[in-house]
């Protein structure tokens, strides 16, 4: 059983201030769940910048090199054919396919990496801690471990309410939420 404490906020500006406030009280925020992307939240939580785009660049570069070298190999070494009197290595004609192959691979592998990194796949049933956090409420999540004392829990609740939470609730889950 996993045990969480959830503080619900109804406005993202209150939420952003609350994150600062909670951090100033030296409480460890496990996660923040929001119905949409709140800009600036990742910096406040101290999350490392996503490197998906870096990966996408290298996959794209590899795909571009693969496409050009494959077409070059086919038309100069493996099965040379003269098309309309053009040279075997007719680079300008290779550009469209190289471009498309680059875009396809960069997009596909970035999307794939996104799904894998976030553990998202069809059939991954996951329950939200509170169904309203995918609709209109913003949730700050604390993890409750066997080492969390009743006094800690009480302090967490107080800090959440002082920070402007509209509701604080505990939640037991079979698996990670």
């Amino acid at each position: 059983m996993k045990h969480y404490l959830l503080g619900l906020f109804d406005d993202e500006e209150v939420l952003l201030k609350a994150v600062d406030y909670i951090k100033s009280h030296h409480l460890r925020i496990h996660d923040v769940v929001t119905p949409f992307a709140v800009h600036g939240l990742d910096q406040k939580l101290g999350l490392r910048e996503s490197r998906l785009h870096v990966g996408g660049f290298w996959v794209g570069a590899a795909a571009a090199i693969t496409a050009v070298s494959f077409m070059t190999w086919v038309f100069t070494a493996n099965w040379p054919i003269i098309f309309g009197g053009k040279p075997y290595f007719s680079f300008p004609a290779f550009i469209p396919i190289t471009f498309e192959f680059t875009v396809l691979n960069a997009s596909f592998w970035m999307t794939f990496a996104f799904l894998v990194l976030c553990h998202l796949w069809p059939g991954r049933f996951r329950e939200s801690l509170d169904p309203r956090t995918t609709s209109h409420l913003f949730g700050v999540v604390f993890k409750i471990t066997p080492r969390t004392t009743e006094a800690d829990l009480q302090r967490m609740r107080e800090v959440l309410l002082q920070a402007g939470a509209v509701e604080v609730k505990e939640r037991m889950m079979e698996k990670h939420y």
Partner: protein
Amino acid sequence: MHPESYIRPPLIHGHKDYLQITEDICRAVEARPSRSWWIAFAVSAAVMLWGFFVIGWTIWFGIGTWGLNRTVGWGWDITNFVWWIGIGHAGTLISAILLLFRQKWRTGVNRAAEAMTIFAVICAALFPVFHMGRVWMAFYNLPYPNTRGPLWPNFNSPLMWDVFAISTYFSVSLMFWYTGLIPDLATIRDRAKKQWAKVFYGILSFGWVGSAKHWQRHESLSLVLAGISTPLVLSVHTIVSFDFATSVVPGWHTTIFPPYFVAGAIFSGFAMVLTLMVITRKVLNLQDYITIDHIESMNKIIVLTGSIVGMAYLTELFVAWYSQNPYEQYAFANRALGPYWWSYWSMMMCNVISPQLFWVRRLRRNVWFTFFMSIIINVGMWFERFVIIVTSVHRDYVPSNWSMYSPTWVEISFFLGSLGLFFTAFLVFAKLMPVIAMAEVKHILKTSGEEQKRRQLEAVRHHQPAAAVTGSH
């Protein structure tokens, strides 16, 4: 969040908060389908099934059942292909290019436009695939090691480029659309009351819960996909235009084709988005999210791209005259004055003359006029492709080859079937999935909501003299 002036017209009308947005948009998904939905679905599905029957007919008897002949080898098939691909350009333009340009009105229409793109590309792909004749050999297009040499496809051929362009465009649009849809499907999953809906949307939403880290990656992915989809969307119709422009057929062998085709694609794509959205906003009661300002923005893009298309037509005529090439000149004279004159003048009326009416603000903001025009433009853009393809080839260099072309019932039914497929897919989408990107609309609520703007304005008024707030307008 990017600040926005509070005197700019709001993009979300009414007194909305986040919960209200969720409820307004989920209502269509959660309610039982209406009688009119069932009627529309039944009609579209029946036409689609007729189309499938005709595809079977084509496979069984061969493309000899079509009206093509030795001179006119491309007729309705490729006309329909280019028409559908053009329609498929608006979705990615709205979601990618307008995202990069920070056009917030995009959020009201992007989801439905992307869905429309995907369905249009599927419809488009049917035509060249079945035009191959022996469709079971379609895999010959793919570069795979084979026992014929190995003999590879011709990577120097624009038709081969098209295979890559269309399949890439379809795949990237699908990924872009679906990753954007995941958070909204999770919203529906969490609201679901019935067991089947919990399971169904649970599978579709991939287990999304909206963690901060996931949103950060989601934003990063969307931005990069938008960045690389922008040149992609331009490349696709450029490559489609290469199918013609790299040939030596007078009327096709034109350097202006790539930009002219891209502008035409966006023109027709926005027309189809308007056709669908004017109905959808009314039927699903979403006028607060797809406002008259959204419609006006799209009409402005229509008048811009329509003017580019008109300019391109005139440039083609000028260059034909200026080239002093008799074959080129004849090709254009034949378009306007030859046996297919009616298609040329329909195209001119629908694409060049009528969109100019959108310079009038009143007409741009009139929903019924917009709907009427969106149909006219789609008809016009269909004629454009027909004119380019059929009138250019039906009279070639050797007069003894001259011929006429008219479609058979098989081609007409195939086209109707593709329309049936498109509307069936859109109806199913509009019933099962949120037609508006909820998470994105919520993201802009604080800056672009009507009520939020009013409050900002009041807050400023309390601190400053009124004249400083309203400015001099």
